[in-house]
């Protein structure tokens, strides 16, 4: 196994503009989490019930749309897998 770390070298050459975009994506994901958590929705690792999962997803979509109307096209995957914290 070679010890040279290609990953670390590649990370050093990431353009500043992409780093800035990444920060925005993270802040959107964090905001969604914050909004949904405040409404009693939590991200679950593995909702067992298919119907619960679908309902959680639909509610998460609705909450997200209400609170974050901008930049919708990139939001879909942030919202997957939320269910109500009962």
């Amino acid at each position, binding site marked *: *196994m*070679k010890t040279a*770390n*290609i*990953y*670390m070298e*590649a*990370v050093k050459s*990431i*353009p500043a503009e*992409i*780093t800035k*975009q*990444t*920060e925005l*994506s*993270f802040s959107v*994901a*964090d905001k*969604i*989490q914050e909004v949904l958590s405040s409404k009693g929705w939590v*991200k679950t*690792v*593995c*909702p067992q019930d298919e119907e619960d999962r679908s309902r959680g997803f639909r509610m998460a979509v609705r909450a997200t749309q209400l609170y974050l109307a901008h930049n919708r*096209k*990139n939001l879909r*995957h*942030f919202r*997957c*897998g939320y269910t109500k914290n009962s």
Partner: protein
Amino acid sequence: MHQQKLNNITMTKVAIKSLSQTEKNGLFSIVFENEDYSELEKFIERFKNEADVCKDLNIILSFLERMVQGAGFLERYFRPEGRMRDNVCALPIVRGKLRLYCLRLSDSVLIAGGGGRKATKTYEEDDDLKGYVISLQKLDDLIKVELKKGNIVIESGSISGNGLEKLNL
């Protein structure tokens, strides 16, 4: 051909290589026996000079490093992939032409697998992408067994134990 590729992976011993580490978080990748570089490093080498996907590669790397240096590998930063019961996920969460498949063992430990161009609607339709996901699912199963036996320990930002030597995909 795909089946043959999967059969080869089945017989291969793997090692886990640390690529980036902080006090809290650790990014690792798989190295197959007799190979010099990890799957993530091969992914970088394969796409870094391809003009149409260079930006997508940088986005994935930027996400990874932001997670290593920041809050960790939280579920909300990944695309859910594989089955509901496994820990396989993918990057980037935003739109992109590339996919990197990973095993999210905890909020502080991530094992990056391989990846490639996403040219089909689902990874199952692409033999290469499906192969990367299946090998990560197998690794996930093996790690779970060794964790249960106490042969592997996942702590804050690290994975250790003699069970790591028994990982044969």
